[in-house]
Structures are given as structure tokens and as C-alpha cells.
């Protein structure tokens, strides 16, 4: 009996370790987005390319695309930028939301670091950000060809995020069949789109 008692700490630790293991697959920042499977909110905002001429939802691509929230004050956005460039080269359409930023700085940033965006709207006051439920930059939404948000990612898009989370859904949306989308959603390798 005395000897058995000594196993108690090991047992408790085992329970804790199980808990942590479970915890690793949960993301505490992972709040379900209210806009998942809802259309992109309507907006009329100027673009960085031409700050005098506002554009609206009609300017958004008619095929699946990424909606990327970025700003020059956000170091992670800088880290993410090179990867977005390579995605754009592969033909992925990306629309930028320049979030609570200074227009001149943002234009200079795109000149220096290359511009992966089809266009970037200027959301200086963060109104579109509020409508979208943005936590902070960077954030990326995957939108289908009818303008419905299908996936959301908080934090930078890198190779791992793209291949494990966004690409399967993106490819399903490009293929355009409901079947492909369901396959992507039920694939255990695909992380949740919240």
C-alpha cells in the first residue's frame, strides 16, 4: 500500500499531460467567426492604387480569393508578405485590406516589397475591420466565387497554414463542387476553418 501511494504523483501528472496534449490542439484565440458562411460585408472604400476613387463589393474577383488584412505597423504582416507574393505568383487572387494605416507608408511598402494584391482598400478607420470582426492584423479570409466567406485564419499565412488549412478549401472552391468542399471539410488533416 505504501508503495502504491508513491505512484499517485505519477498518476496526477499523467492526467495533466493528457490535458496539455488536448490543449495543444485547441487554440485559445480561436473564436468562431460570426461571418463564416456569410457574405463579405458591403463596403465602399478608396484603394491604395487610386486613393481618390472609392470601390465597392462589385470590384471583388469573381473567383475564389483571399481577403488579407494587413498594415505597415504590423511586423508579422511583413513576415507574411513574402509568402503572399509567392501565392500571387502561383495565381492565387488576393485582395488587401489596409487596416488602420497611413496611406503613404502603405504605398511605399508595396513599392518596396512588391504588391501581391489585386487591389488594397484603405480601411483607415477600421470600419470594414469591425464589420468583418477583425481581431488584429494579419488576418486572412478565404472567399468563394459568390462572395461568401468560407474560411478564416488569424495570424500570418505561411507554408504550414496554407498547406494544412487554406489550400484544401481553396482548391475545393476552385474545383467548385459541393462534393469537393465536403471532402475538404471532412479531411482530418485539414484544420478547422473558423
Amino acid at each position: 500500500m505504501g508503495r502504491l501511494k508513491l505512484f499517485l504523483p505519477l498518476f496526477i501528472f499523467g492526467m495533466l499531460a493528457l490535458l496539455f496534449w488536448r490543449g495543444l490542439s485547441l487554440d485559445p484565440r480561436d473564436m468562431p467567426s460570426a461571418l463564416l458562411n456569410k457574405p463579405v460585408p458591403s463596403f465602399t472604400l478608396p484603394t491604395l492604387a487610386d486613393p481618390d476613387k472609392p470601390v465597392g463589393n462589385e470590384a471583388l474577383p469573381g473567383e475564389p480569393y483571399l481577403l488579407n488584412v494587413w498594415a505597415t505597423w504590423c511586423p508579422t504582416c511583413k513576415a507574411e508578405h513574402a509568402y503572399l507574393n509567392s501565392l500571387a505568383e502561383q495565381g492565387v487572387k488576393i485582395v488587401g485590406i489596409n487596416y488602420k494605416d497611413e496611406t503613404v507608408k502603405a504605398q511605399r511598402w508595396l513599392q518596396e516589397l512588391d504588391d501581391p494584391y489585386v487591389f488594397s482598400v484603405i480601411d483607415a478607420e477600421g470600419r470594414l475591420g469591425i464589420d468583418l470582426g477583425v481581431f488584429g492584423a494579419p488576418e486572412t479570409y478565404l472567399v468563394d466565387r459568390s462572395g461568401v466567406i468560407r474560411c478564416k485564419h488569424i495570424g500570418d499565412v505561411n507554408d504550414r497554414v496554407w498547406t494544412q488549412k487554406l489550400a484544401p478549401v481553396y482548391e475545393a472552391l476552385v474545383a467548385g463542387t459541393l462534393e469537393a468542399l465536403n471532402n475538404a471539410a471532412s479531411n482530418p488533416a485539414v484544420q478547422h476553418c473558423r
Partner: protein
Amino acid sequence: MIPEIGQFALILGLLLSLVMAVVPMVGAARSDIAMMRSGHSLAYGVLVLTIIAYACLTIAFVQSDFSVAYVAQNSNSVLPVQYKVAAVWGGHEGSMLLWVLMMCGWTAAVARFSRALPPALIARVLSVLGMILVGLFLFMLFTSNPFDRILPFSPTEGSDLNPLLQDPGMIFHPPLLYMGYVGFSVAFAFSIAALIGGHLDSSWARWTRPWTIVAWAFLSLGIALGSWWAYYELGWGGWWFWDPVENASFMPWLAGTALIHSLAVTEKRGLFKSWTILLAIFTFALSLLGTFLVRSGVLVSVHAFATDPARGSFILGFLVLVVGGSLLLYALRAPAVHNRVLFSWLSREAFLLWNNVVLVIVLAVVLLGTLYPLIADALNLGRVSVGPPYFNFFFVPLMGVLCVLLGLGISANWKKTPKDRLLKLWLKPQVLALVVALAFPFLFDGQFDWKAALAVYVASWVLFASLADWYTKTGNARTFGGRFGKVRASYYGMLLAHIGLAITAAGVTLNTIYSVERDVRMLPGDVQAIGHYEFRFDGVERVRGPNYMAVEGRVLVSHGGSEIGVLKPQKRNYFSGGNTMTEAAIDTDLFRDVFIALGDNMGKGAWSVRLQYKPFVVWIWLGALFMGIGGGVAVADKRYRRARAKAPVQAAPVLQSA
């Protein structure tokens, strides 16, 4: 080139520590003295290699080599050079390297200062430390390599060290913390070595004690410095938030405090052996757990370390291996507890047992509160966060009980103390503490406040009981001055640490009770008053720092008509971008802080200003300083040096009486 040298040094360090993990341990099993001795030179070798790696990273920072990803993320060419050097540990990868460097330093120190210990024991200790080092090196090389390059398109400018970290307090906070965490690994290694070797005698406790006390002292200072930094840098005057990351450093401290006290019993009386071993394992496990919680992203915290699930999985695996393995070893090898009670309930052992019980309850409360969001999430109970009310509700009364027990126990003798004698010893400090407690609220504030009276009672009881004990223990000196030489350094260390606890307790409680905070809108020339303090706002000016522009407010502070000075709170915009930083202006003296933070520009020259009057706040950290110094004084005791010199003779497990 230089980063590659650093990377190479890390790889060699991994290989050498692999050898250190195996060879001395095998040597100890085979009684091969040459293999056992190899641990010493291996420990020095790993230290030298890690110093090389660390120096390489520092050079990359000083030279602003932005082709190194870690440098590009955490430095900037206009960053002042002292912050470039400190930026080495400003992010995840570099702070791991600093951690490993300190671990190697401690390992080498064990090798250097433990020559007189039995060779088999020290060989096992070094092997255990080597195993931990292997894990840390692997972690760095596979998941968080500080030397990774961004090639061929390396950035021309870095994104700068987080402005929050550009501060002297932040330069020293992490190294002190890591010294503490890592130091507990020595106590852990001694425990494991003792379990493997089967020699669980009191000499084992004596060897472990100084290492544990030094680690504890560093951790005390580190936590206090972090709290002080949060107070003056975060800009809203709080000093403890029960944030998961703060708790991550506080839990090893609680376990370490319990460990120090239980080690004392094990050394002096040969009791609580299994419990002491278990505590040593727990203390180190909690240090590792802290690393896991901070760097894996399982909990949301204000301390945003670069989190990554891959790192989390690695640390969790490491944690399971180290802690699970040692707890299994413990279950198989620890001496079974015999239930015969060898001391009376009015003995020092009994009071130290209570100390341990209370500390472990506090630890459990903090651990539960920290992990509860994770538990709830894992069991699908929804997302919750546990706030300060929960922690304060349990923590404050339990610490009060601990302080009262401390004062009661300090004058108790080992084994048994006559009741009459104890009551007599307790009487005078008890009366004195009561008088001070009842008088204080009137003298300070002009009216009675039972919370303040209770707080002052607890703190002054610890203080007076400690001093009274010193007075009694030195009673056979002929003159008052002669008393000071009558007790040993380790006793003074204990006294200082306990007085430190009293000071911190008083600071925490009185500051909470008597602080005044006011958010006001002020136009130039406006005057606001808090108590006898008057604040006149004289507008703002633009100033330029080395890597930022700032708006600087001018506030003339006076007390009862006499001027104290002009305080200049700032709002800084760093050139590298990011959020605006609030730099509070603080006037500190021993009994109060005046704290001013500049808020937002409200137009037409008006600014929102936060004015705070915070009595006794500096006592919180002053007390921790006492604890840290107390730890230093305690290990300076001659006894530990003598123990080392005599150790070979005492090596046999027979000597229980020491």
C-alpha cells in the same frame, strides 16, 4: 559566417551533452572512476561551446546582420547598442539560448564546486543535467534555431525590439528568472541521482540546500523585477495581474519556497525525505511547465511570445519524458513512508510541515486557476477566463495564515518545545504587533480600517517574532554588539528573508487598501488634488529620443504647498512603427509613489491624465530584495564550505546524526 560558427557550436554542444548524459552515468554503475570523472571536463566543454554560440549571436546583433531571421525580427539599426545586446534574449529563440547558457553555467559550477562529493553521486548529477541539456539543445536546433538565415532576400532593416522591452528592467528580468528556473534543475538532478544511487541521507540534503537557495534567491529577484517593470512600464500602475505567464514563474517560486523549508528538516532531522525529493521534482517540473505554457500557445496571455504548436508538442514530449520518468523513478525507488511520528506538534518540524502544507495549497490554487481555462476548453465547458478575484480570494488569506504560522514556528525548537516556554516567547512580539496594528490606521489615515489593521498585524507579527527570536538566541552575549556574532550567516539569511516577506506583505496589502487613482481631463494650468498632493498640468512638448518621437507632459507636483518637482510622462512613437507606448512618470520615496501617465489628446490643449497616489508600493519589491539578499547571505555560511571539505569522509550513508 559568424552565425554558422554559432550554429556549429550548438551542434557540437548537443553531441558533447549527449556524451555527458551517458558516460558518467555508466561509469557510476560500473564504478569506473575515469568514466565518472569525464563528467567534469564534459561540463566545461559544453559551457565553452555555448558561450561561443551565444557570443556569435551577440555579434550578429551588434553588427545588425539582418540576414539572420532572429536578428531581423528583434533588432533595428537605430536601436541603442545596450538594447542590441539585450535583444539577444528579447525573443523566443535567443531567450532559449540564454537559458541553455545558464544551464551550462550551473552545470559547470556543480562540476567545479562539488569535487569533494562522492564521485558516483556527482557523476550521476552531471549525467542528469546532461540529459536535460540534450533536450534543450534538440529543442533549439529543431524548432527554434536562432541562427536561421533569410537568404537570398534578406531584409535591409530589422523590425526592431518590441518597445516594451526597451527598458533596463527588462534587460535583467529574464536572466534573473532563468537563473532561478535553471538553478532548480540542480536540486532536481541531485534528487534523481540520490534516487538512482539509493543514498537518501541527510548529507544529500545538505549538498542540495545551497544550490536551491541560490536558485530561489534569483527567482525572487527576477519575479520582483518583472513586477516592478510591469508597474512603471505598462503605464497603468498595476504590479501583478495573475496572468498565466506571471503564474508560470510564481509557481516554481512557491514550490521552491516549500522545498527550501523541507530541505531544512531533511538535513537537520532526516525526516520528510520522500516529500523533499518529490518537491524537488515538482519545482523543476513547474519551471518546465512554465516554459510550456509560455511558448506553446495553449493559454492566452499578455506576454505574447512567439508561439507555435510544433514547439508546444516538443516541450510537452520533453516534459512527459523528464517529469514522467522521474516520477516513475520516484514511485519505484523512494523510501516508503513510515507513519511513526517522530516529533511533537509543538516542534519546529511540525511548523515547517504546516508551512509546506499551506504553500502546497497555495500552489494548487494558483495551478488550478492558471489551468482552468484550458481544462474547461478541453472538456467542452466553454471558454472562460479566471481573473484576479479568484486568486485574491484564496491567496490573501492563505498567505496571512502562512505569516502567522511563520511567527509562531520560528521560536520553536527541533523535536519538542515546552508549551510554557513557547507561550512566553510569543507574548511580547504578539502584544507589540497588536499595538502597532491598532495604532497604524489612525496614524496613517486618521480613521480605523480593520483590513489595514489586520495587514499590519500580520506583517509586524512576522517582523517582531523574527527579531525577538534573534534576541533570545543571542541572549548569552555580554554586550549588545556582541550579540551579532552569536548566530551564523545562514540564520541571518533566514531572518532577512522573513523580514522581506513581512515588508512585501505590508506593501501589497497597504498599497491595495490606500491607493488613490484618478483619470482626469486637464487643460494647461489646471490643478487637481489627491489628499495633500497637488498636480498642476503645464501642457505638453515634443521631444525626440534615439529611436522614437514623444509627446511629453509637464506636471508640477507639490505636497502641502511645497514643490516636489516636475514629472514628465511621455507617449512615445517608435520609428519602427507599432502602437504608441505610454511612459509613466513616477516620483518614488520610501512611503509612497506619485504616478502620472499621459492619456489621449482631447483637443484644444486638453489631455486626459491618470494621476495615482500609491502608498508603500515600493515595499513590495524592497521585500523581495531582502529575500534575495537573505538567500545570498544564507549560502555564504561557512557550514556549506566546511561540509564540502569534509564531504568525502561523510560520504557513507551511516552519518545520520550530522
